[in-house]
């Protein structure tokens, strides 16, 4: 992909006070509504602690003007980011996709971390799966979050 996808748009990171990312996103919206400075979207990804990302047709100086009026926003980070750099925040992969009944997985979190297990049931809505430990003599069903497992094999073994 090239940068021509978002002509005239700029992407700035705005530093926020600790744990106020969502508040700052809301406050930017309020400040925009009370000014002639344009912002099209504000993103507060979970992975980006202490920052929000602003999509705007405005230049850096205008963003600074806006941010002065936004409670809990500290400063606009000098230097722009780009749509290509931020777009992965917008399409998080569904965590249980690719996991089906019979899929062999490894638990990567929790008390059974490192154990292999067979998937018995997938709850797509709740993004939880029920597994049985592979090498356990008594099969005990365990329900875990879809992101607590790693797929090892998509087929049930023959033996």
């Amino acid at each position: 992909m090239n940068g021509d996808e978002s002509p005239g748009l700029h992407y700035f990171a705005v530093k926020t006070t600790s744990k106020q990312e969502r508040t700052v996103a809301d406050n930017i919206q309020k400040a925009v509504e009370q000014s002639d400075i344009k912002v099209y979207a504000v993103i507060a990804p979970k992975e980006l602690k202490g920052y929000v990302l602003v999509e705007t047709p405005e230049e850096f100086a205008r963003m600074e003007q806006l941010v002065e009026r936004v409670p809990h926003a500290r400063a606009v980070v000098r230097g722009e980011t780009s749509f290509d750099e931020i777009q992965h925040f917008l399409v998080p992969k569904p965590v249980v996709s690719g996991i089906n009944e019979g899929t062999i997985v490894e638990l990567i979190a929790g008390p059974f971390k490192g154990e292999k297990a067979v998937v018995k049931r997938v709850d797509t809505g709740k993004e939880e799966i029920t597994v049985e430990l592979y090498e356990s003599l008594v099969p005990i069903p365990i329900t875990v979050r879809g992101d607590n497992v790693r797929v090892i094999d998509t087929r049930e073994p023959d033996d």
Partner: protein
Amino acid sequence: MVVRRREKILPKVCRECHRLVDGDSCVICNTANLSTDWTGYLVVLDPRRSQVAKKANIDLPGCYALKVR
């Protein structure tokens, strides 16, 4: 056994369109399929001009969760 993290209760969002919802249903999707288990936040002010909204498949202004469980 259900593995769960303990977290502050968040506002409700619609599981279908990811919009933050007041009350017991999403008026856009006409569904009561809501969740308080979500992460990441997105405010869309101008969906027609926003590349971000386009990528996230959002065509109405508003507040959205990025990831919903």
